[in-house]
C-alpha cells in the first residue's frame, strides 16, 4: 500500500520544522517546497494526496498556485488546505474561491493542523 503523501509549501523554516516534527510521528510521507513555483512543480511531479499551502509565498502566491493546481487535470482532485496569516475578513472567501478545500488561520495550533490533515486523509492503521 502506498504511503499517503502530503506536500507542504511554506517559506518559513521553523514552520516547516514544526510540521516535519508533527508528522514525523505519523505514517504520512512529507514533501516540502519553499515557494509557489516549486510547490506547483512538486505537486505535478509527486502527485501528493493532500497539499498544505501557505498564502504568502515568494515567486508565486499560495492563492495563485492553488488556482493553477485546480486548473491542471493532474492535480485537479487533490484537496488543498490554505494556511493564511492575514486573518482579514474575506480571506476565507478568497481561499474558497481559489479552490481550497480547507482553511487554517495562523497562528494555528499543531493539534488543529493534525486534526485537519486527518479529516482529509485518514491515517491508515498500520
Amino acid at each position, binding site marked *: 500500500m502506498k504511503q499517503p503523501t502530503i506536500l507542504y509549501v511554506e517559506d*518559513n523554516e*521553523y*514552520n516547516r*520544522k*514544526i510540521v516535519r*516534527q*508533527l508528522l514525523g*510521528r505519523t505514517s504520512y510521507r512529507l514533501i516540502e517546497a519553499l515557494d509557489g513555483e516549486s510547490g506547483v512543480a512538486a505537486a505535478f511531479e509527486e502527485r501528493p494526496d493532500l497539499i498544505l499551502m501557505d498564502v*504568502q509565498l515568494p515567486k508565486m502566491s499560495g492563492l495563485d498556485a492553488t488556482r493553477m493546481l485546480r486548473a491542471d487535470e493532474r492535480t485537479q482532485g487533490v484537496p488543498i488546505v490554505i494556511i493564511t*496569516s*492575514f*486573518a*482579514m*475578513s*474575506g480571506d476565507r472567501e478568497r481561499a474558497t474561491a481559489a479552490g481550497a478545500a480547507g482553511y487554517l488561520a*495562523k*497562528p*494555528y*495550533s*499543531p*493539534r488543529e493542523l493534525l486534526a485537519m490533515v486527518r479529516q482529509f486523509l485518514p491515517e491508515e492503521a498500520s
Partner: protein
Amino acid sequence: MAASALTRSPVNALVRWVAGIRASLHTKLLAAFGIVTLLFVVMAAFGVHTIVETTEQARLLDLAHQRVDWSQQIEQALARQMQFSVLALLSQDEAAIARILRENNRFNELLAKLDAVEIGEQHALVEQVRVSQDEAMSVVADIANAIRDRTLGDVTGALLAHQERLDAEIAARVARLVDAEQRRMKALRDSIAHANRELLVTTAILSVSAVVLAWLCGFVISWSIILPVREAQNFLDHVATGAFEQRVVLPNRDEFGALAERMNRMSEELQKLDRMKVEAASELAQLNTQLERASRAKSEFLSNMSHELRTPLNAILGFTEMMVDGLYGELPEELKDPLNDVQTNGRHLLRLINEVLDLSKIEAGRMELALGDYSVQELVASVRVALRSLAEEKGLDFRIDVADGIPIARGDAGRLTQCLMNLAGNALKFTLRGEVCIGAALQGDELVYRVSDTGIGIAPEQIDNVFAEFRQVDATVTREFGGTGLGLSISKKFIEMHGGRIWVESRVGVGSTFFFSVPLRVGEAAT
C-alpha cells in the same frame, strides 16, 4: 439680421461714430432731440419769413396798382383839362377857366401823390409832366387874360395851337408814365410769381430734408443703443456657456462702453477663478492619487506586518504546544509551569497584535463588515464557552441571560463576538468575587447586548475615558490586570460600523454594566 445688414451699410460708420462719441446716452439723446427741435425752429422761421415776404409783395403790388390808377386818373384829368381849355376858347367863358383850374388842381394833386411814391427814372418823367403842365397853365392864364381883355379873337388861333401842342406833349408824357407804371407792375407781378415758385421749392426741399434728418437722427441713435445691447447679449450667452475667454468689443464711449468694460472685467475675474478652480481640481486629484497610494502602501504594510508578526509567533506557539503535548518525550514536571506561561504570554501577544492591526485597519478605513445571519443565543453561548475556564479559575459565577424569542439576527457575527469577548473578558478581569452575566434583549428593532459584573466599578469622572484609545481607567490598573486598552475603542468602532452605540453604567465598588445596541437586521432597511 438687421445688425449684419447695418454693418455693411454706410450708415454703420455713422452709428459707430455716434457710439464712439465720448458723451453719456442722456446727452446724445438730448442732442438728437435738439437737432430735431432745431429743424422745427428753422421751418417755423422760414414760414414766418415767407409770410412777411408775401405780405410785402402784396403791399408793393397794391402800391403799383394805385400808381397805375393815379396815372390813369392824371390822364383823365388831362383829357378833361384839354376839353375845358377848348371849351373856354370856344365859349370865351371864364367859368370854363375855373373848371380848368379845378382839373389842374386834381392833376397836380395826383401828380404830387405819384411823385411822393415815385423813384428813379419816373421822377424825371413826372418833373417833365409838371414843367409841361406849368407851361399849359401859363397858356390857360393867357386865355383867361385874353377872355377878360376881350382880345381872345386875335390870339385864339395862336393860343389854341400852343395849347394843343402842350397838351399833346403832356398827353404823350403822361402816356409814357402810365405805360411805365404798367410795365413796372407787370415786372413786379412776374418777380412775385418767380419768388413764390422759389419759395415753394425751398419749402419742399427744407421739409423733405428735415424729415430725412429727423429719421436719420432716430435711426442712428437707436442703433447706437441696440447694437451694444445685442453685443452684450451675445457676450453674456457665451459667458453663460462657460466661454470666459470671450471679450465684448464696443465702439461706445458712453454708459454702454462703461458697461462693456465692467463685463470684460467680470469675464477676466471669472476666467481667473475658472483657472484657479481647474488648478485646484488638478492639485486635488494629484493629492488624491498620492493619498490613495499612501493608503494602499499602508494597507500593504499592514498585511505584511500581520504576516511577519504572526509567522514567528506561530512557530513559538507551535513548538510550545508540541512540547506540552509530549511530542518531544515526557515533559519534566518543573517545565510544565514555565511552558504554560510561555503559551499564556504568546496568546496574549497574539491578541495584542490582533488588536493593534484591527485598529490600524479601522483607522485606514480598510475594515469591512462581513454581514450574515446569526443566532443571538448561539453567539452569546459561544462567548461563555470560550471564557468559562477563566471564570472557573477565579471562582466567579458566570451566566447568560438571553431573552426568549429573539429572531435570527443579521450582522458581522465574528466582530460582535469579538466585542462581547472583550467586554466579558474585561468583566472577568476586573471582578474579584461575585458574578459576571452576559445578556441580550430585543427593544423594538434594536438588539441590546449587556455585560454586567460585580467588579471594582468606574469612577464617574473616568467614564468618558473608558472608550478612548490607549486608555485604561487607571495606569495602575494596567499593571495589575494587563491589556492594551485598545479593546474597548475597537469594540466601539465595530459597534458604530454596525450602526449601533455602546455605553456604560457603573458604581465604584458595586460593579459596572456595559451595554451596546445594534440593529437587529444590519444593512436592511428598517421596517
